[in-house]
């Protein structure tokens, strides 16, 4: 097999790219971060005749030269992965826009197949497309597809097999004479095996990443006289390219009869994007969604935990041997894993995927941007932050929707103050139950206040400024359930294969430590923490071990202090315990996720800083309250 049997699929957001991947490969795809970025790329193989072709898919982009990380990755994949060709999905309802990227990729001299999606929709709108003419102009295949019905997919595959690695002489945009002169002049200084014309254009468009392909880096200065005619040569190039794209689109389409736009869409947008109602509807939707997920999560968790307990007692037949305890803890880990995976990941992504495919999510992002902007975060960050109310582990993974590592890190650090269901269980079940509802409320208030302080400090340090937003509002469409399911499963995959085994292992480690009596030894050096917090020394067990499995904190506190906590601890001590065990990176699985996303060093620093912050604040509040009390 030729190692260059790679085909890249590109397209603008909402052009139906994920549906095409689905139609081509199904759920057998692998999603991974492209090395060194937060950008996810999807890979999957498919046999076509004698060929096995690997399809690569990067996130939707509008052009390959924009400065966002997604676009950068597409550019890198195009050249570093040595793809044998590109399928560009074009939206038949707005050809001129899609053709902009087509022209750019053709400039790179890579075999290109144009797949036109939404042809039926265009026809309904009264737009007729002349495929023959398009093929003539581009001298590349142009194929009408519909990934949902399967139209054109076989034809597309035949075309892939036929065109892979085929040398091409494709369409060239004719720039103004002065620009052509400049392209020619810069081309002569280009080294390497990339298309010289393409590199020259990128250099003229001031893309610094391409300067490294130049033999003489001063060449741009030597074409100074061109700059006299074109003071803004990058702009002139882009404008010419779009002009050409527009011209081609106009030439190959005929507007038969322009149908009136759909009234329903405007009505819905009128409500969802209303200045006042928009944010209210958005927040209400998410509250409802998370409410439903938390509720279902609770039911599933109770059921699974009950099942586990019965399994353990069945295993040991009432006998508490070391092996049974260790296995039991492993089983508990598994149960915890499933009760996170099902509601908080699968159900969550199912709902998100559903509203994403309908087109509502984009509207919600516009509304939430107004809120998250204040913390220096983009509108998209609302989704992972809200998910953190369920479970921090998938929420950290969900921060990948953000476009830079910095933003991702910023958002991830805020999870220290967003209690997950296990931490909610501590606040409600321990603080609320033994100390009263008002005490639980104080813990929440503390979390919010110190969370806001932390976010503002971080905003200062990182100097994050939410990037201005450009979003296309997709037409409302009926989502395909199969697509939504596949997407959710793909997103859940790495939790199932990586995090769940970890949960089982940590459960068993905890069991072993317990059985072997090592717990006491490990805990001793941490006694200064309880001193600072003004708590009995034994509370260190739930505090430290809560880090292995947060769900066990409550139970461990009870076994450490006896079941009548309100008699052992003062309300102030219960509050202190609540804050100390809620603020910070909640558990070792989250630490693992952080390491995966940000590397060992950053993850450890973040965890240590946040957990010390939590303990410091808890001890400080205790001291202040004591001091005030003594004063009066």
């Amino acid at each position, binding site marked *: 097999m030729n190692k260059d049997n790679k085909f890249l699929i590109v397209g603008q957001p909402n052009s139906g790219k994920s549906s095409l991947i689905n139609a081509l490969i199904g759920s057998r795809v692998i999603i991974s971060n492209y090395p060194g970025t937060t950008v996810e790329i999807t890979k999957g193989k498919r046999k076509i005749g004698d060929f096995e072709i690997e399809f690569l898919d990067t996130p939707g982009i*509008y*052009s390959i*030269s*924009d*400065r*966002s990380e997604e676009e950068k990755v597409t550019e890198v994949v195009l050249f570093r992965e040595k793809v044998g060709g590109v399928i560009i999905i074009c939206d038949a*309802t*707005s050809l*001129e*826009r899609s053709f*902009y*990227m087509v022209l750019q990729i053709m400039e790179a001299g890579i075999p290109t197949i144009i797949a036109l999606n939404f042809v039926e929709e265009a026809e309904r*709108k009264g737009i007729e497309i002349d495929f023959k003419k398009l093929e003539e102009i581009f001298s590349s295949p142009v194929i009408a597809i519909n990934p949902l019905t399967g139209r054109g997919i076989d034809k597309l595959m035949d075309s892939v097999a036929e065109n892979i690695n085929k040398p091409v002489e494709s369409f060239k945009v004719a720039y103004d004479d002065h620009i052509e002169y400049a392209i020619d002049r810069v081309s002569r200084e280009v080294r390497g095996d990339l298309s010289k014309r393409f590199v020259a254009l990128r250099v003229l*468009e001031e893309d610094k990443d391409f300067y490294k392909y130049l033999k003489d880096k001063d060449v741009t200065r030597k074409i100074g006289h061109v700059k006299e005619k074109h003071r*803004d040569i*990058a*702009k002139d190039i*882009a*404008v010419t*390219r*779009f002009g050409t794209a*527009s011209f081609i689109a106009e030439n190959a389409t005929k507007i038969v009869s322009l149908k009136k*736009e759909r009234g329903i869409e*405007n009505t819905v*947008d009128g409500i969802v*994007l209303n*200045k006042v109602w*928009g944010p209210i509807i958005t927040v209400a939707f998410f509250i409802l969604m998370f409410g439903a997920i938390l509720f279902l999560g609770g039911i599933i968790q109770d059921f699974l935990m009950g099942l586990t307990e019965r399994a353990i007692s069945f295993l040991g037949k009432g006998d508490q041997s070391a092996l049974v305890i260790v296995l039991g803890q492993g089983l508990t880990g598994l149960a915890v894993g499933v009760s996170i995976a099902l509601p908080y990941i699968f159900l969550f992504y199912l709902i998100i995927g559903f509203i994403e495919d309908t087109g509502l999510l*984009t509207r919600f992002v*516009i509304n939430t*941007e*107004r809120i998250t*902007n204040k913390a220096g975060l983009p509108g998209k960050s609302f989704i992972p932050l809200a998910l953190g109310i369920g479970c921090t582990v998938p929420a950290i993974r969900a921060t990948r929707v953000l476009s830079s590592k910095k933003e991702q890190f910023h958002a991830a650090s805020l999870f220290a103050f967003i209690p997950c269901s296990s931490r909610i269980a501590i606040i409600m079940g321990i603080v609320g139950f033994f100390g009263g509802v008002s005490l639980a409320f104080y813990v929440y208030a503390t979390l919010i206040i110190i969370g806001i302080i932390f976010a503002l400090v971080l905003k200062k340090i990182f100097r994050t400024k939410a990037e*201005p*937003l*450009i*979003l*296309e*509002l997709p037409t409302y469409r009926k989502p395909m359930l199969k697509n939504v399911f596949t997407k959710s499963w793909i997103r859940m995959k790495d939790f199932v294969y990586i995090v769940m085994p970890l949960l089982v292992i940590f459960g068993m480690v905890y069991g072993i430590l317990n059985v072997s009596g090592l717990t006491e030894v490990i805990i001793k050096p941490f006694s200064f923490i309880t001193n600072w917090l003004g708590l009995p020394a034994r509370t260190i067990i739930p505090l430290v071990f809560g880090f292995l499995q947060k769900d066990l904190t409550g139970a461990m506190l009870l076994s450490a202090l006896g079941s009548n906590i309100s008699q052992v601890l003062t309300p102030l001590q219960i509050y202190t315990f609540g804050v100390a065990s809620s603020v910070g990176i909640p558990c070792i699985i989250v630490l693992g996720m952080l390491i995966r996303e940000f590397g060992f060093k950053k993850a450890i620093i973040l965890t240590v800083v946040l957990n010390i912050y939590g303990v410091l604040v808890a001890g400080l509040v205790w001291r202040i309250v004591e001091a005030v009390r003594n004063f009066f």
Partner: protein
Amino acid sequence: MKKEQGILKIVKEDILRILAENNDKVPIKLLNSDIKVSDYFIDKAVRKMARNKLISSEGQFLRLTGEGKIEAEDILKKHLVIEKYFEDLKSKKEAHNISNLIEHYISEEVMENLKKLSTFKEKGISLVKFDKGECLITDIVSGNDFFERLISMGVFPGEKIKIIKDLPNGIIFKIRNKKVFISDEIAESIRVLAYE
């Protein structure tokens, strides 16, 4: 006394400008009708300027000397920039009158800022200031990171857009039957003209 000096300065600059605008000899009568002060000040200013060799008189006509031309150019440039700036806001005549007032007092700094504004003015107003109806994109100020993104989304000079919603954080408009949201920060760089 101080007040008289102030008025004389203005009259002097006005005379310089009027002479420069006409680029030829100008009848004194025209000065009297164009400059809204009593003839006393005009006479005094003319005499002073002649003494300083800024103008030469030929009977009822005045003409700039070489030295005068240099000084006049300065004031005329200021006048034109300010006039250009106000032209789109008010009628030409009003703009002219406002300029007559400002040009004497304006600092170099204000001048530079106005110059920037007036080049923008030629190309329509910023989309942010436009909150309803249809408009034509006249230019996208380049040099921002989003320039190419906008172009590749079809937000392109010459395209017509229809504003759908003006939200607190941005603007939603329709372009070639696609709806697009952009933050105000980006809308700032799009110049538009009202479309009739």
